[in-house]
Every structure is written in C-alpha cells, then in structure tokens.
C-alpha cells in the first residue's frame, strides 16, 4: 500500500494543516513533495498520444480538439495524400558540444583585450535580450549570429593584422562597445536614471587608416545604432554600406537596412499606417537582396523575412499560401507549421474551443482553402459549423468531409441518418476508417440505433494494430462501455490503458508532448466515465455484483468493493456488506481481522459497530469509485489504513458529479461521448434499479460527509455500549479524522461533534491510552 502524500499540481510543496481549537502549541505536519503530479491519460486532448505515428499517417481517431497542426496532417491523410515530410532542421554539432556563440565571443574578447567578464555578462540571455518600448516586452536584440560573426571577424582580422596588433585590439574594443548596447539599461548595473536610453558608439577611425579598418568601423557603428534601438540611423548607415562597393560588408548592407526597418515597424511604429509603410519599405529592400547574387548567403533569411512581413501585412493571403503548402505540398518546414499556428491563432484565437460564427474574417479564411475550411468546420462549435460540414460533404462526398460531417452532425440534424449510412462506405484500408468507425458508432448511438452501433463495434479491434493505436482502442472501449448490454461487458470495457502522462496544467501547451515521466504504466486503469458510472449510476446490489465478479483486475476491483462495502454500511444493508466483505478480505489482507469481526458479529448492532471501527481504522475506504489515476494513485492496491495528511481520507457528500466547473476541464472521454457531460445509466440497468439507485443516493446524501456521519454514529455507540473496549479508540479516531478529513467542500461544519467526542473520551476513559494520545480536538 502506498500513501499518497502529494496531491497538488500547481504547488509543489503541500502540507496538511487544521486549525487547532486549543491555544497551545500546535503540531503541524509539513510534507514536502517535489514536482507536479502527472495525470495518467487514456485519451489526450491537444496532442495525439503517439505523435510520431500520427505524423506518419497512422492518425487513429482524429478529434476536433487536437492542435491545428495535427488537423492539417489528418486532412492530408483523409484526402488521400501522403504524410507531409517535415524537413529536418539543418544538421549541426550536437547541442551539448556546440560552443555557445556568446561565450566564444567573451572568451575571444578577453583574450585580445586582457579584460574579464563583468557581472552584467553573467548570462548570455541577460545580454542578448533587451526590453523595448513601453510595453515591458523583450526582443532578442543580439542573436547568436551576431556573436558568431564577431568571432569569425576577429579571427580574420587577427590573421590579417597579427595577434598582438593595435588594429586587432582596436577592432575588438570597438566591437565590445557595439555589444554593450545589447542588454539595454535595466540589465546593466547602475543605469542612468530617467532620460533617453544611452547609446554606445565606437570612436571614429582616424583618416588614412586601412580601408578594411574603415569599412569595419562603418559596419560596427551602424550595428551599434541597431542594437541601441536607433533603427532609422542604423538603416541609413547600412544603406550607405550597401552602396560602398569597396566594403566587405556591402552585401549585408541592404539586408540589415531591411532588418532595421522591420524593427522600426515592430518596435517604433505608433499606428497601423506607419507600420504598414515601414513593412513595405523593408519588403522592397529584401527583394533587392534577393536580386543581389552576391548576397546569396542571405537569400533564405531574406525570404523568411518577406514571409514574416506578409503575415503581418496580408495575413489571410499568407495564411492561404502556408495552408496550400501544408495541404498539397510534398514537404514543409517546422517554420511553416509555426507560421500556420501563429496566423490561425491571430485569426481564431489561441484556443481549440471556439464558436465557428465568431471567427474573424472567416469567409476570407476559408475561401478557396479547403484545409482551413475543414479545420474550422471540424473544430468550430455551433450549428453553423455543422451546416458547413454537412454542406461540404454533400457537395464533395469525400472521406475528409464525411469526417467533418460526422463530427458535427447532431441527432436532430436532417442529414444525420444520411451521413451515418454514408459512413458505411468507407473502406477499412482508408486512413479515415478508425475515425469514421468511432464516429459512426457515436452518431448511431445518438440516433437511438443502438444495435447497429454495437454490431459495428463488434467488428472493430480489441487491441492495438495499425490504424488502431492504443488511444483509439481506449475510445472504442469507451463506446463499448457506453453501450454495454450487461455487467460483464461493462466491466470488461471499463478498463483502459495509459497512453500519456502529463501534469494537468501543461496539457495544452505546445511543447507538452515532451513533458512525460518516462515511466511505463502498464496497469489497466479506469477513466472518468467508469468512475462516474460506478459512483452514481449503479445500485448497491450491482456494485456488489461488480466487486464479486473476477472480471476487473484486483487493483480496480478493490475500488469497487470499497465503495460497495462503505455504502452497505451507510445504508445498513448487511447482506450486501457480508457479500462484499468476503471479497475485500481477499483483496486487502490488512483488513482481514476487522472484516472477520464484521462477518462474525452476533447481531446487526454488533456488526454495525464493527463496521464503524473498520471505517475509522481505514481512512482509505471511500464511498465513491475513483475514475482516472495519477502517478501516485496508480500504485494504490488496497485502502489506506492510516490518515493521509494531505487528503483522500473517507468521502465527501454525495452530489451529482459535474465536470464543467473544473479548472482541469471536462475529461476528453466525457467530452467526446456524453453530450450533456453527464454519464448515463447503462441500458441494462432497469427502471426499477434506477429508482433504487436514486433512493440510495438520496439516503447516502442524508448521511452526509464521512466525518460527520462517523462522529454521530460513534457517539451513539459510546452511549449505547460505554463498556465496549473499542469505544475509546473510536472516539480518538473521530477526533483525529476530523482533522484530516477537512477537505470536503460544502460540508456543514458541525465541529461540535469532534468536541463531544473529545470530551466523552476524556470524561469517560481518561486513563485509556487513546485519551492520553488525544490531547487536542480540531474544528
């Protein structure tokens, strides 16, 4: 058994506390935990669980809330195109061995000048980034390339003028001045208070010096203005360099003038018109760079900057071009995906949950652009998205639009039946097959054509195979669970496999696929659907039946058995309690002695007291069944026999579970398969059983949260059987349990029960070891 000490995703250290009702010194337990808690996920949200397979065309069930880059890949797959080859970044020295350009520069500079690095140069990023403007945002003012170029130039000048030469020292000193503009005032020690930001410009060279030295200084001076945020002057000087046929920097002049002009547009421009004018100027300059064969080394970068400008001047046009690459090209770059994401985020919002009708410039975005049209129809919410998807499917009758129509069709839609029937035509070899099959089951279920849905499910795989990744199998199992015809089926389909593990807070971040524990989680797990169904959609007798059945693996079976036993005690249903006690005894040996006492009790009252003592001694006994696991609960194999100081003791009130108001969002399996976000009764649960379930839940609700119920019952027990030798222990555990079961939101705070337990313990059993151990009571 494992105690779950850490249960906090955002805050890395947690401690359990409770307000002591006494004024004396309070013992406070502080339990430090490191790192976030990883949720074990059976169906991921933004990223497919197996990204590599997905990007090779094995897309599994494609879902609307996947990030748009994955939807683009899926669109290709469903359109019959081969997976997009994503060009690998240029090969370079492995990161661990590659010298850091900034460090190289500092080393070279200090070697030439005999200087040592200052505290302001402690970190490269401190020097390279500079806050600009009045918006508290930083730009990468001096990128790595600047230092790389400086180091190379230093080496060239050393070769030309000699290692100890005055020319080399002068060049290096001037370059150091140039780079002193990089960080800007906030990162420098003792900045000038107020006033304009200082600019550091190298000294001019005297007349008559070598032409190379003169050209270098002109370039360094222009660069100083650039890093000093004086972009207009920098651009002017770079243009002069471009016009100087003798300068070795000539081919850079035009390009850097364009970059300075782009900075003027992004940093200095005060209105859109000015910004657009400056972008236009920069774009013209970049086109001249492309026309200059001597600047060939800069052409790729110039093209990238032109695209950058296009995305800002004519976002929709640029979006269409990138979209075309992603939809129909044979290869793309990571930059294409980044651009697509940036532009779609600008137009739609950085979200996967949005209303179709609220997308800015939607008509322009989708005009003659089937990828965008499809992405918005699949992902956007509302009837307008459904209408668009269905209209496009009717017009094209293609698998890609069939998928969109299936996602968006709702039972009342006149086209629903037509779409679900059309879905039968998709061949099993199609990349869209698993998506279409999943959606066909979903829509058939919504249309009430349950038998057809089950028949289709019966033809689909039960385990992973090409086209059916583990995540897809989990989704199919969730459908089978939803459509189960009997308890055996339900139990078989309740278990899933972990396909991903991730802190809930990081689930939607772009880079999050890499945030994993790296541990194998091979044990079967429940998801939220199973937890909710066992907890709220089954009468006690069915829970007992589920616990008795050997279908579930022991780790999950014990969860069901715990809930069944606890409910049996609360509902005073001894026959149910006795049945499940035998199972619990087998699954949780540490409880055996207490369970034997319960089983062998001479009468109902004795059995109830035995049950109360068992509950008191086993805070891990819950009345509900936990659904999804995390990296801690996955190791729980039997109920805790000691109070967990950070929560998880006993149970709270029996309210209808809701997923909508959770900051973690609705679990994806609920989101995809339960339109009301509530788990429904299984079909095999009869009307009478449903009524029984409701009655039981009402009765359990009346009992309230665990600590109040147990306190009241133990006080009654103490009054009825004051000589029972276990009463002092029970009273003491009430006091302790009151402290550690404080996490139930909304529980009426009847702390007088704890006070009464404390007073009874000390008044009637003052010499007991339990009274001596229980020095305080807690509100």
């Amino acid at each position, binding site marked *: 058994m494992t105690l779950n000490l850490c249960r906090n995703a955002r*805050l890395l250290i947690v401690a359990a*506390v409770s307000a002591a009702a006494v004024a004396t010194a309070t013992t406070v337990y*502080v339990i430090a935990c490191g790192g976030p808690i990883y949720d074990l996920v059976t169906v991921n949200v933004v990223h497919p669980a197996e990204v590599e397979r997905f990007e090779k065309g094995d897309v599994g069930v494609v879902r609307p809330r996947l990030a748009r880059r994955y939807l683009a890949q899926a669109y290709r797959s469903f359109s019959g195109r081969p997976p997009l080859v994503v060009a690998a970044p240029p090969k370079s020295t492995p990161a661990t061995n590659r010298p850091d350009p900034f460090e190289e520069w500092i080393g070279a500079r200090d070697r030439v000048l005999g200087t040592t690095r200052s505290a302001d140069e402690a970190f490269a990023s401190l020097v390279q980034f500079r806050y600009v403007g009045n*918006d*508290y*945002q930083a730009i990468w003012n001096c990128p790595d390339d600047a230092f790389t170029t400086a180091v190379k130039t230093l080496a060239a000048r050393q070769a030309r003028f000699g290692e100890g030469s005055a020319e080399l020292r002068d060049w290096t000193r001037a370059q150091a001045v140039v780079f002193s503009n990089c960080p800007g005032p906030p990162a420098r020690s003792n*900045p000038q208070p107020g006033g304009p930001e200082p600019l550091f410009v190298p000294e001019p060279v005297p007349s008559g010096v070598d032409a190379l030295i003169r050209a270098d200084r002109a370039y360094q001076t222009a660069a100083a203005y650039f890093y000093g945020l004086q972009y207009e002057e920098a651009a002017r000087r770079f243009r002069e360099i471009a016009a100087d046929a003798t300068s070795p920097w000539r081919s850079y002049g035009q390009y850097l003038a364009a970059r300075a002009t782009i900075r003027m547009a992004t940093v200095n421009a005060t209105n859109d018109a000015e910004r657009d004018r400056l972008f236009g100027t920069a774009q013209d300059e970049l086109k001249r760079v492309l026309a200059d064969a001597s600047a060939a080394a800069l052409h790729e970068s110039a093209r990238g900057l032109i695209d950058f400008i296009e995305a800002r001047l004519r976002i929709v046009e640029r979006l269409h071009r990138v979209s075309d690459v992603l939809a129909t090209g044979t290869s793309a770059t990571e930059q294409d995906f980044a651009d697509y994401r940036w532009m779609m985020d600008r137009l739609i919002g950085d979200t996967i949950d949005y209303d179709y009708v609220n997308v800015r410039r939607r008509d322009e975005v989708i005009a003659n652009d089937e990828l965008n049209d499809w992405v918005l129809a699949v992902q956007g919410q509302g009837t307008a998205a459904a209408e668009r998807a269905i209209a496009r499917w009717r017009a094209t009758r293609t698998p890609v639009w069939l998928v969109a129509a299936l996602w968006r069709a709702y039972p009342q839609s006149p086209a629903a039946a037509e779409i679900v029937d059309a879905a039968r035509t998709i061949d099993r070899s199609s990349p869209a097959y698993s998506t279409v099959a999943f959606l066909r089951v979903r829509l058939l279920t919504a249309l009430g054509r349950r038998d057809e849905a089950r028949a289709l499910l019966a033809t689909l795989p039960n385990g992973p195979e090409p086209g059916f990744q583990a995540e897809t199998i989990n989704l199919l199992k969730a459908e089978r669970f939803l459509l189960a015809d009997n308890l055996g089926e339900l139990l078989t389909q309740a278990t899933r496999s972990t396909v991903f593990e991730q802190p809930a807070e990081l689930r939607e971040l772009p880079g999050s696929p890499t945030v994993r524990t790296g541990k194998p989680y091979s044990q079967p797990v429940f998801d939220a659907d199973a937890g909710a169904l066992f907890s709220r959609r089954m009468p006690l007798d069915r829970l007992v039946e589920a616990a008795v059945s050997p279908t579930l693996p022991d780790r999950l079976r014990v969860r069901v058995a715990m809930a069944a036993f606890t409910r049996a005690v609360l509902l005073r249903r001894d026959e149910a309690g006795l049945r499940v006690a035998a199972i619990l005894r087998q699954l949780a040996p540490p409880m055996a002695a207490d369970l034997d006492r319960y089983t062998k009790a001479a009468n109902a009252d004795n059995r109830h007291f035995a049950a109360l003592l068992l509950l008191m001694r086993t805070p891990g006994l819950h009345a509900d069944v936990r659904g999804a696991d995390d990296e801690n609960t996955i190791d729980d194999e039997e109920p805790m026999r000691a109070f967990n100081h950070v929560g998880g003791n006993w149970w709270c009130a029996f309210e209808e579970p809701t997923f909508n108001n959770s900051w973690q969002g609705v679990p994806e399996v609920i989101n995809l398969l339960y339109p009301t976000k509530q788990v429904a009764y299984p079909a095999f649960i009869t009307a009478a059983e449903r009524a029984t379930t409701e009655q039981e839940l009402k009765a359990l609700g009346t009992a309230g949260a665990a600590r109040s119920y147990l306190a009241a019952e133990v006080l009654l027990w103490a009054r009825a059987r004051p000589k029972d030798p276990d009463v002092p222990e029970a009273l003491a555990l009430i006091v302790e349990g009151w402290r550690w079961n404080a*996490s139930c*939101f909304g529980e009426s705070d009847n702390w007088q029960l704890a006070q009464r337990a404390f007073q009874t313990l000390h008044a009637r059993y003052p010499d007991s070891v339990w009274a001596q151990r229980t020095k305080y009571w807690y509100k």
Partner: protein
Amino acid sequence: MRQWVLVGVLASLALQSPAQAIRSNAPAGSLPRLILWAWERPEDLRGIGADTGVAFLAQTITVAGERLSISRRKQPLRVSPETSLVAVTRIEVDPLRPLSLKPDQLPGLVSVVASTARLPRVRGVQVDFDATTSERPFYRNLLRDLRAAINRDLPLSITALASWCEGDDWLGGLPIDEAVPMLFRMGPVDEPFRRLARLGNWNAALCRGSLGLSLDERFDLPSNSRRLYVFNPVPWNDTALADARRQVMR
C-alpha cells in the same frame, strides 16, 4: 581605510540572519489593495485605474543543475502611467536536473532579478518560486542578496505555497515585505488552507497581509482588508476585472 571598514561591516552582516541584514524602508502597504497578475500573454490594462496594480511576469529563470537560462517577457503589457507595477520573476527548476548552483553564480542571478526593478515605473519586485525544502537555503540567500541589491524603498514580495504560511515558518526572518499565499490549484488540501486563509491568522506573519486567488477557482474568501493578488488563466477583460474588484470589497 573606510572601504575596509565597510567591507568588514558587510561581511558581518552577511553572517547574520537575512532579516537582520537588510530591511525594506517601504512595506508593501504602499501598493494598491488589488493587484492583477499579468502572465506571459498580451495584456492591455490601460483602463484599470490607479486603485489597481499589476504584477506582471517580467522574466522566467529556468535552473537545470548548474545551468541557468533567462527568458524575458516577450508579450506586450500595456498600462497607464498611474498604474503601480510589480515586476515578477518566476524561477523554475528542471525536475530532471535538480538545482545545484555554485555560490559564485548567485550574484549574477541576483542581478538578473534585480534588473527588473529598473524597468519603468516598477514599484515592487516579486519572486515566484515553488522552492522545495532542499532549495530553501538557496532561495533564502537569493532573497537576502536581492533585498540588498534593489532600492530599499521598493517592496519585495514572494508568492508562497499555502503550506509555507502554516508550516514550519521558514518564511520567518526573510527580508521580504510580503508573502502572498497562493490559494489555488491546491487539490484536496484546498479546504483546510482556505479555512486558515478565511481566518487570516497564518503562523507566518508575512502571509497575513495578502491573498492570492485565481478567477477560475472558488473565489469566495473575504479579503478583510488584505491585499488581493488575482490570477486569471485567460487575458483580462472588463468582466474579469469587475469580478476581481467585487472580491476586494468582500
């Protein structure tokens, strides 16, 4: 000679507890009662008025073993000139490469955090670091040197895990003006900490003057004249601001 005396005094101060070394002249009381956290996303808060401050994420420092990387804020924050600003530095530690900085790296790190104090109109500095127990000595030293590095009139605050406010009081003696109890994303331990927060009598005195809440979680704690820091997981708008203001009135 005078310089050597000064060095000696400083050295002796360094051996004392942080609280004895440097104290602020300007307690956090000089800041508004409502402060909005503005995290790494574009925020336009020009209309919030002078009675509301903004604690903005100025930079994130990531520590991986002995390596540090600094990511300055890359998203615009627009505020009006009268808005009080608190520059927040978030410190994160790579879970796979525990913090193992050398003492000689501390001055550089301090200067990075202190640099945010020199951003325009910044009236407070805040550090957001969920330090584990083993990281506390490092954090304590960082705060000690940071206090010495920034203007003594500038309030220095930290975000505090709720457990720090009620636990072993390691906050005691820190040279800070305020520790903001972060009362969100707490999972099952939510309720006991909220009860303590409601009472406001945390063990750690530094926690008693403020509350840190999030708009997407239960927002039901009375501020009781405490300063309220409010986090919003999505960009701020008028509705969210109104919700935050209502909370301050409770």
